[in-house]
């Protein structure tokens, strides 16, 4: 009966969401009282969807194939962790995960939002309920995860083998937490537009949510990138695949949103930007959901193509985004200008940041949608590949990265560029020195690589300029400097760390792109290949049964240039239930670099082996982790916490 109770719980949550939406929009002016009801409703929705989700997980663990979803996507021999993660490794289950995270954020707003004005809280929760009702309705009526299958088959169809990986347990929940988290910013924007309460305090409430979602999204994208890198067996870490772009666009817009909200909170400026970005970021998340879930795109993310679902999501998309922009158009003219500032100022710099990021979103959007529209309207199928994105996106990001270190050093309202430049001389000199050193050691070739390195080092070192400046290192006794450094607000540290992480990622991208080496060869056991100073001995080849697959295993010994040796193992697996093959590459990490071995199909008693050497590739993800860490540090700053403004006031008034 647990499955049916889960089904009922999801339906009850849907019903509560529908009534909350209607009640919230009708009575929001009654303030505190309706807010209390809606808060209770948000908590109930969370509990009920959690029950529904748990019922699905329980059915998968028990291999209850009377649940259609389990019969189609699970297998009794699958290891436990993949039985659980298999719940969201399909269209219906992933929608339940989406709704679960949506209501979890709604419940968090209800829990932490006690200090919010009642009308604003009511409108935020009503909008959250609207989204929950829309998505739960979509799930229940077009793709019900609780559909039953009688008589139940004795065995399930198993999960796509590519998805039978720890990545499925981590990547979707993180990414969804990012995607869906921005719904809170969206709901706050809608609430602000309806109530007309668009002020500085609003930005203070929104910023932690934007920061939290952005942190999750950063980790989710990085995790997805690393998963694709090690599982798909092509050694690529970013493909400009439409599905990747779908997650990257909200990230770019969310990054701009974070910076805008900061300005609005501190200087009461950039209001239109902040509201606009709140709407656009979540709209892009929805667009991503539409692209992935409608079956328009064929990829590992597309579990089922069903035109009805696509149309319904498109209608939801039009309703939510169209409604939001309609409200925006109604209200935009009444938005009061806030703090005044000169063109050269912190505010001005952040506008430049927004412009570049927004343009980058536009470029990626065009590159992603243009082929789809062309195909739909004219019937011509073209592909917009990596060259387009590398050129347009690279051209937009290079100038942004160039001016990035200036931003944190500029003063509010009216700034002194020359003064900021003087404080960055040290960072610039250090960046040039490192670039020349590396180019000299590695042999100079005519390419863009040294320029890329210079840019990466400039961003990385420039990130610390503000820390150096404010701690007065070198101009004060060391102890005093350290005391100042420790006493700096966490947001300053967070900014420095995030920008440093950006620089680290740039360095990783440049190094991998410029100096990657590749070898495709045929090897037999006992033979040896060489690449970039690494010697790869093919030791043995054999077959090994796994829990639900048969594996062809190739064992290699890698001798590094330094002489150390490591044993490693590359697999090709054939899954019993589906007969589908996967490759499990052997990846060995040396410092920040990796050696990547992939076993091809055995043919005529020989084996095709692909070997890549990827210098400093891990910096790409390491940088992303630093950025996410910066997000966490910023969230721990007392000043962003909604619940503790008094104590924060005391802290902030201490001399910095």
């Amino acid at each position: 009966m647990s499955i049916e109770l889960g089904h009922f719980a999801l339906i009850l949550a849907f019903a509560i969401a529908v009534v909350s939406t209607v009640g919230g929009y009708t009575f929001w002016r009654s303030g505190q009282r309706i807010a209390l009801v809606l808060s209770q409703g948000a908590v109930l929705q969370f509990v009920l969807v959690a029950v529904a989700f748990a019922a699905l997980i329980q059915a998968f663990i028990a291999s209850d194939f009377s649940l259609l979803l389990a019969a189609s996507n699970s297998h009794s021999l699958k290891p436990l962790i993949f039985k659980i993660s298999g719940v969201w490794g399909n269209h219906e289950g992933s929608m339940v995960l989406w709704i679960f995270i949506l209501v979890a954020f709604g419940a968090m707003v209800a829990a932490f939002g006690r200090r919010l004005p009642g009308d604003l809280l009511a409108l935020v929760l009503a909008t959250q309920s609207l989204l929950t009702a829309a998505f739960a309705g979509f799930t229940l009526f077009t793709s019900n995860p609780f559909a039953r299958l009688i008589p139940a088959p004795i065995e399930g169809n198993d999960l796509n083998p590519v998805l039978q990986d720890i990545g499925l347990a981590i990547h979707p929940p993180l990414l969804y937490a990012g995607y869906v988290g921005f719904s809170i910013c969206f709901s706050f924007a809608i609430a602000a537009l309806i109530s007309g309460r668009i002020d500085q305090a609003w930005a203070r409430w929104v910023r932690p949510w934007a920061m939290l979602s952005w942190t999750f999204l950063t980790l989710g994208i990085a995790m997805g990138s690393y998963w694709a890198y090690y599982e798909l067996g092509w050694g690529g870490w970013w493909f400009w695949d439409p599905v990747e772009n779908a997650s990257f666009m909200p990230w770019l817009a969310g990054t701009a949103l974070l910076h805008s909200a900061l300005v609005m909170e501190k200087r009461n400026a950039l209001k239109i930007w902040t509201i606009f970005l709140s709407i656009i970021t979540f709209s892009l998340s929805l667009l991503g959901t539409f692209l992935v879930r409608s079956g328009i795109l064929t990829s590992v993310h597309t579990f089922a193509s069903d035109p009805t679902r696509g149309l319904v999501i498109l209608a939801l998309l039009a309703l939510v985004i169209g409604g939001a922009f309609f409200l925006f158009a109604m209200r935009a003219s009444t938005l009061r200008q806030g703090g005044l500032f000169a063109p050269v100022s912190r505010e001005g710099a952040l506008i430049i940041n927004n412009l570049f990021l927004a343009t980058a979103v536009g470029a990626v959007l065009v590159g992603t949608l243009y082929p789809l529209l062309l195909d739909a309207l004219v019937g011509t199928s073209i592909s917009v590949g990596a060259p387009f994105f590398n050129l347009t996106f690279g051209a937009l990001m290079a100038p942004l990265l160039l001016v990035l270190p200036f931003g944190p050093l500029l003063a509010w309202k009216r700034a002194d560029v020359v003064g900021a430049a003087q404080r960055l001389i040290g960072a610039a000199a250090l960046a040039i020195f490192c670039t020349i050193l590396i180019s000299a050691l590695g042999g100079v070739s005519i390419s863009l690589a040294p320029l890329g390195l210079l840019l990466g080092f400039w961003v990385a070192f420039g990130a610390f300029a503000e820390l150096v400046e404010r701690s007065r290192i070198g101009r004060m006794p060391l102890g005093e400097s350290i005391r100042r450094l420790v006493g700096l607000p966490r947001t300053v540290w967070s900014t420095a760390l995030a920008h440093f992480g950006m620089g680290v990622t740039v360095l990783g991208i440049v190094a991998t792109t410029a100096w990657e080496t590749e070898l495709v060869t045929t090897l037999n056991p006992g033979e040896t290949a060489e690449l970039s100073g690494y010697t790869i001995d093919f030791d043995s080849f054999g077959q090994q049964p796994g829990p639900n697959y048969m594996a062809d295993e190739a064992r290699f010994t890698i001798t590094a240039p330094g002489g150390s040796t490591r044993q490693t193992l590359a697999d090709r697996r054939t899954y019993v239930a589906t007969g589908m093959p996967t490759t499990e590459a052997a990846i060995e990490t040396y410092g920040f670099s990796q050696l990547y071995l992939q076993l091809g199909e055995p043919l005529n008693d020989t084996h095709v082996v692909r070997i890549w050497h990827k210098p400093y590739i891990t910096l790409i993800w390491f940088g992303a982790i630093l950025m996410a860490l910066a997000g966490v540090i910023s969230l721990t700053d007392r000043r962003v916490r909604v619940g503790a403004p008094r104590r924060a006031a005391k802290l902030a008034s201490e001399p910095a």
Partner: protein
Amino acid sequence: MLFWFIATVITAIACAALFYAAGRRAVNLSDPDLDDANSHFRLVLAGIDTDLAAGKLGEAEAQAARGELAREILRLKAEAGRVAGNSLDFGRPALLAGLGGIAVLALGLYGLLGSPNTPSQPLAGRAEVAAQSIDLDAAITRIEAQLTANPDDLRGWTVIAPAYLELRRYADAARAYRRIIELSAPTPDLQTSLAEALMLDAGDAGSPEAMALLREAAAADPAHALSRLYIAAELTRAEQYAEAAQAWQAALALSEGDEPWLAAAQQGLAVAQNGGVAPANDAEAEMIGQMVSGLAERLAAGGGSVEEWTQLVRAYLVLGDADSAQGAYDDAVAAYPQAFDRGELDTLALGAGLTLNGAQP
């Protein structure tokens, strides 16, 4: 019934929680709006001082920022006064209507979508699984023990003989069939089964005893097809093609036109008549040739996907035309210079001994 009871209770609890939330008075929050706004503005004011001290704001700009803040506070206070009178509260009827709506919507919708009487069926608790998990090895061990005690148990041997064949214990199967023949009488079917076990046990070596048994079976029953098929197959294996052809024809003569072995027997006859080599089907070969040349022309003229190139190279390799395969592979590499794009093609070509850019890896 139990389900509907639980569902109703859950709905009632949810509605009660909402009802009491509406009844709770916000006693501790006398004027939360103003309170929070004030604390926010205190923070902004403190922030201005901090920024001034850190050099993030000039003296004049800090003054301007304080002015802006003051104006904002005045504006908000004026606005709060205007909004206060514009309150729209909801009464008990609206609340009850909402709660009723939730109950009706949830229970009604579930009635529409759900299947309350379908029980859960976890795999571990299912009868089929229990039946399936009977261990064949354990059952055989048990029957073997019985047969050791009572070697004349015809039924035991009859059960265990096909099980041995299934488990590929051919010698044991032959022993079992021999015993059955001893205990009952030799029938063509039993003799054929024994011969099958003997031939499988002998592998490629062939078994004269099996052949004798099969001929005996065929002689005993002029309509016994299975023994004749085995004879024909064994003769073909032994490369006695003339006799094999006769045997295949003898078996085919018994066919009524819908036997599952018909196609195999016809092919066996063709092989035997052709001296042991499967004859090429000319019409089929010609069709394949046309398809390949059509694909080659299309790819040469307008290019194509890497999958189509792979198909062409594979077709040439199957036809044994290595030069054309190499040519097609070279063209494909020219069309797709990035190794990244060519995954399967490289695997196929390099595995078949073709060269990449003139150099064999």
